[in-house]
């Protein structure tokens, strides 16, 4: 108990002596902790900004890919794709709510004299619209009758409506895709996912019944489809069920198809983001290292300057441990002050950057802990040698130096 009290008294004295010395060398202390400050600022800014950017990308991925799996069919020698009957097999699986094939149709889109070459046309089924009930904003969706009869109807995107029918009601008009006439029955709006989601979800400017698209393509097989899972179904379990069913359809030949989930894409994205931010943090820690060397340099100078003081304190009964802890405390506090101010500036800077990049600012406690913790470690490691040097001084020689 007595020893504990004594250590506590010494600890308090070390802190106050260290702060005194830092205050008494304001300019030098400031320049020294600048290195640490910049290092911590860089670490926090980089980690926070990178995680903000990747966070907003992955969240847009996950918002559109919850509960779906994408199947790409490369086919075998005897069977190049899946038939509508095969799709029905998949749709009837326990974990599956429905299946939506994607059959792309190449060819320009035109209305009267207005010809658009960059527009895409895609064949979908009625279920696609059931799974995305909010899509249609005018007219009707494609239905099972359209699928069964391969009708020449289409729903078109808001973009195309603006292009062809500005100010006019598009419903009932006829436009041409690859030279064939289609009657517009509905208009749809894509959700805010924008460019990224249209690539991954396969939404197009013109959506026609997939059976019609197959007929025009002169093919009776589908090579790409999306599986919508029943609610609460584990995507891993569903994936293996679908893979089993597909294996059976392809007579267990290897490499005929791939089943991928948005989650796996998200995982890949996340691990890339982690790699990127640790790489950047690694580069930023070089600044911390340089800052640490600055601290060591200052502490060595300080020890030399205060040789007499050290000798006197030893003569008055200070043990080496007390001298060492005083100097160690000084470099630790110096480094921590640098670390904490760096953290504040880093947060402010990354807040500004996130606003500038239009991504959401996420307070990253881990980054702050890393930055401040690293600076504490730097202070102790680089303060160690000078403090040890001080504690080893012989009081007789140290006093004689006066």
């Amino acid at each position: 108990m007595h020893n504990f009290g004594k250590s506590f008294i010494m600890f308090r004295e070390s802190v106050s002596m260290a702060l005194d010395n830092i205050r008494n060398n304001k300019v030098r202390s400031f320049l020294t902790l600048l290195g640490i400050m910049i290092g911590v600022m860089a670490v926090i800014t980089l980690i926070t900004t990178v995680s903000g950017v990747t966070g907003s990308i992955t969240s847009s991925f996950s918002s559109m890919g919850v509960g779906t799996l994408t199947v790409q069919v490369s086919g075998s020698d005897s069977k190049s794709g899946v038939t509508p009957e095969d799709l029905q097999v998949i749709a009837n699986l326990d974990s599956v709510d429905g299946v939506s094939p994607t059959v792309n149709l190449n060819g320009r889109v035109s209305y009267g004299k207005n010809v658009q070459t960059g527009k895409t046309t895609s064949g979908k089924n009625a279920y696609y619209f059931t799974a995305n009930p909010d899509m249609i904003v005018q007219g009707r969706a494609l239905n099972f009758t359209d699928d069964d009869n391969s009708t020449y109807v289409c729903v078109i995107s808001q973009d195309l409506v603006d292009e062809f029918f500005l100010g006019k009601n598009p419903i009932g008009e006829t436009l041409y895709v690859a030279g064939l006439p289609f009657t517009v029955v509905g208009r749809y709006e894509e959700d805010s996912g924008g460019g990224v989601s249209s690539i991954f979800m396969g939404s197009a400017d013109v959506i026609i019944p997939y059976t019609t698209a197959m007929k025009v393509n002169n093919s009776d097989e589908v090579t790409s489809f999306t599986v919508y899972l029943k609610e609460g179904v584990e995507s891993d379990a569903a994936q293996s069920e679908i893979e089993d069913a597909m294996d059976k359809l392809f007579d267990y030949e290897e490499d005929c198809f791939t089943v991928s989930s948005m989650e796996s894409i998200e995982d890949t994205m996340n691990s890339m983001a982690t790699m990127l931010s640790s790489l950047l943090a690694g580069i930023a820690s070089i600044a911390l290292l340089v800052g640490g060397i600055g601290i060591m340099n200052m502490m060595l100078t300080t020890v030399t300057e205060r040789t007499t003081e050290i000798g006197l304190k030893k003569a008055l009964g200070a043990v080496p441990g007390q001298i060492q802890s005083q100097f160690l405390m000084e470099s630790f506090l110096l480094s921590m002050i640098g670390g904490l101010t760096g953290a504040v500036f880093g947060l402010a800077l990354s807040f500004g950057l996130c606003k500038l990049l239009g991504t959401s600012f996420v307070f990253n406690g881990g980054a702050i802990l890393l930055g401040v913790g690293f600076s504490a470690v730097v202070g102790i490691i680089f303060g160690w040698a000078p403090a040890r040097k001080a504690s080893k001084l012989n009081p007789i020689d140290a006093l004689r130096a006066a």
Partner: protein
Amino acid sequence: MAEDIFFRMTDIDKIYPLEGEDVHALKKVSLSLDEGEYLSVLGPSGSGKSTLMNIIGCLDTPTSGEYILQGREVEDMDELELAELRNREIGFIFQNSQLLPRLSARKNVELPLIYGGIRPKERRERAEAMLERVGLADRMDHMPNQLSGGQQQRVAIARAMVGNPSILLADEPTGALDQKTGAQIMELFQELNDEHRTVIMITHDLKIASHARRVVHIIDGEISEGGLHDA
């Protein structure tokens, strides 16, 4: 037995190895002291008096011989034990007072108590009492550079006494002072000795040494009793 002995040195040798040729700084030094004595060690520079002071002050250990202070055998103590002994038993007073320039007079006096693990409140009270004792009651919060040489030396004496040590060990305490101030400091030592404090004064100055009740001479590392004086 050793426990009852206040201060006794027996056959102390100190040898410094120097470039193959050993320097024999102290040769068979024997010295005994009772509590409350006032002793001067008189010798020219190079006589070994600094070495003797370092050993008396527990800053260094002898090469051979026996040194007992307050019943404890100092000669084979380690660094930690020596530090503790210095803190408790020795009050150092140096030629140029050696105050820490960035601490107030009071804080300077508190230093030995900090290393003795005394609580802040008690430290403050004891430091203030000591500063009053040396006549600096109105200078407690002054920084060393705001004090005269004599006042600085008084602060140093207060610092030496604050831990209530067995011995006040002064190394040329008036060396940096003018005659008048020096005389005042010597008067203070006399007063402290009258209060039954043990004083050992290391000096090369016969006039200073003659203030002590007992003088020993040290020449070439050998010590000889100089006889009694009247104060």
